[in-house]
């Protein structure tokens, strides 16, 4: 009737904005001092890391371990596997898988799937090739921009159908899988430059994306610049965050990560700079390597540092929560499908560059399965909300390594497919187990 009754221990009389007396902390099962644990010490960081693994976020370590095992097995069976020539070959093989996997990351993060990426890549590649060929003879940049714009528009169209008409992405993109193959064949039919459904790519810039190499010196310079920038950015962020007293991995971990990146980069450039030609000198990093790395970095930035990227993860995990948070769910999802198809267009560019041509018999159906496999093997989740571009990078390399290695061992295509299937199953099993553990934590 008068003052709010002190009917329980929790109802203190109002004391303005301050909570004067220390509150009894009832539930702390394992109270760690303060809400702001700054992981200063290595031990604390490792404990947190272990907690994250138990919480369902295993990071890239399993896939790195798997890659090392695959490399050791193949190298022990066939010493050519780690030769300079084969590693460069493997990297160029991996580029298409990585880019297609990267495309699929956008769909998977949104808890969707895109089955059309293989043929969208084909359509983009065909348009680029036809614009480059006579009688069009476009400059390379014009052809590439138009080809990628068309793939982006395809993604926007599919995304709009999925989000506005609320159609399942599986069906819409399955229709895309069929329909864009038809468009691809039609494009080759109406074009005079296509001979038997094949358009050659003779433009030097597009052709050299995969087949051309940087000079050895340029390779080293690029590496130094890239690693230097990476180190400056990560160290700078670490120091800044530490100064503000924010959660920061220990400096030793940051430095170790930079050292690992530098070591991998040095090994890569050193291997690529070995002369792998039999008759003429052939050395240097293929242009496609920095190209793929640049795409991975750019898309990582988009997903990790922008609102749109953050919203993609939120929608993938809990679309209702995202909607209530005021996020325009339909627009973000449409954008995700746009990015997916655009990245598929980049994969198509690399594909035709590698072969020096694009043909209507491109197996877009199988390619899209590799794309999903690459993303999932790398650590993206089919259940949505989890997956990073680096996962597609690692997954694509694993798939290429398996195919390349089995090919070197003389295993038939049948055996290669079966082996890839086993790797995929193993990866999905890990994903599922980790997820189950995460949800019960």
């Amino acid at each position: 009737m008068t003052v709010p009754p002190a009917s329980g221990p929790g109802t203190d009389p109002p004391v303005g904005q301050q909570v004067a007396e220390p509150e009894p902390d009832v539930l702390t099962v394992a109270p760690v001092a303060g809400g702001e644990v700054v992981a200063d010490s290595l031990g604390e960081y490792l404990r947190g890391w272990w907690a994250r693994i138990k919480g369902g976020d295993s990071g890239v370590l399993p896939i790195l371990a798997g890659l090392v095992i695959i490399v050791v097995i193949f190298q022990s069976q066939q010493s050519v596997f780690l030769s300079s020539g084969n590693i460069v070959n493997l990297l160029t093989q991996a580029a298409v898988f990585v880019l297609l996997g990267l495309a699929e990351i956008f769909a998977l993060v949104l808890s969707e799937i895109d089955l059309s990426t293989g043929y969208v890549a084909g359509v983009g590649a065909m348009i680029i090739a036809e614009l480059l060929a006579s009688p069009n003879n476009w400059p390379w940049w014009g052809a590439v921009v138009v080809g990628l714009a068309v793939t982006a528009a395809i993604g926007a169209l599919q995304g709009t159908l999925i989000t506005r008409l609320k159609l399942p992405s599986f069906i819409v993109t399955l229709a895309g899988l069929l329909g864009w193959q038809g468009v691809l064949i039609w494009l080759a039919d109406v074009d005079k430059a296509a001979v038997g459904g094949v358009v050659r790519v003779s433009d030097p810039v597009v052709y050299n994306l995969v087949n051309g190499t940087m000079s050895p010196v340029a390779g080293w310079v690029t590496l130094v610049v890239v690693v230097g920038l990476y180190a400056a950015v990560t160290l700078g962020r670490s120091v800044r965050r530490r100064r503000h007293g924010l959660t920061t991995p220990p400096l030793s971990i940051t430095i170790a990560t930079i050292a690992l990146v530098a070591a991998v980069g040095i090994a890569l450039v050193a291997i690529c700079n070995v002369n792998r030609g039999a008759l003429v000198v052939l050395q240097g990093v293929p242009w496609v390597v920095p190209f793929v790395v640049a795409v991975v970095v750019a898309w990582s930035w988009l997903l990790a540092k922008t609102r749109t990227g953050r919203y993609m993860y939120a929608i993938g995990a809990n679309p209702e929560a995202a909607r209530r948070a005021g996020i325009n769910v339909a627009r973000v999802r449409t954008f995700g499908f746009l990015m997916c198809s655009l990245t598929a267009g980049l994969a198509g560019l690399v594909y035709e560059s590698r072969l020096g041509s694009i043909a209507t018999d491109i197996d877009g159906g199988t390619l899209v399965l590799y794309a999903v496999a690459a993303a999932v093997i790398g650590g993206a989740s089919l259940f949505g909300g989890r997956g990073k571009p680096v996962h597609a990078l690692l997954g694509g390399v694993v798939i290429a390594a398996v195919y390349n290695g089995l090919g070197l061992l003389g295993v038939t295509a049948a055996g290669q497919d079966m082996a890839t299937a086993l790797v995929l199953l193993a990866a999905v099993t890990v994903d599922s187990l980790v997820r189950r553990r995460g949800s019960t934590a």
Partner: protein
Amino acid sequence: MVGDGAVGDGAVGDGAVGDGVVGNGAAPPLLALREVSKSFGAVRALDRVDLDVPAGQVTALVGDNGAGKSSLIKTVAGLWSPDAGHIRWNGRTVVLRSPKDAEKLGITTIYQDLALCDNLDIVQNMFLGHEPRRFGVLDEAAMELASRNTLRELAVTSVRSIRQPVASLSGGQRQSVAVAKAVMARAQLVIMDEPTAALGVSQTQQVLDLIARLSTQGVAVLMISHNLNDVFEVADRIAVLHLGRMVATGPAADLDRQSVVELMTTGTRAVRGG
């Protein structure tokens, strides 16, 4: 908040617990419903409901299943408009056409599902949809500092790291994050739907403490609960719905468990001096 918990304490609950209309004192309550009705076909979900929710106090909304509790909070949350009656916010009549309207006023509703994204960490969840940016890039430092301060103000100290994914939190901690998210959004009224359902004993206690702390900071809390233990522990005021009608509102001190149960089940209670 002006006047904190002392808002019209003298005026509220003029003894007429059974009728529930509160006398208009000097300062109007933060939220006031007057004669609010809502029907779904032949079903009268809310029948001329009056309710006052003062700032800095915890108002518990109790009632049996189908009494209209959810209909009432959905009306206040802006999910639908009432058929009749009006809603006053700080004494001013407002029309809530959408949840956005309610949010703009400072009304945040925490539903039982909490609307958290399991894959995002605490900071990311607390700022979802309102992320500050610097040069177009997410300002993680600002978000982390603000989240930490809010959690500290609410004395939520049990989380190991605010950078851990919400999936790894306990039920009580998740509830705490949802509340902190509301505070972060500068909510003046936090509506909580069964905040302690599905929680264990110690976690329930944690959430009740949090609710109490919220009200001491000047925030009005409107809490739906089935659990009368929780209601009597934390509520300053109790409002009882029965078949869409508000059968009693008043300070918790004026009511006892027995009469609340009677009001919830029959809509009336044995006459007594009050």
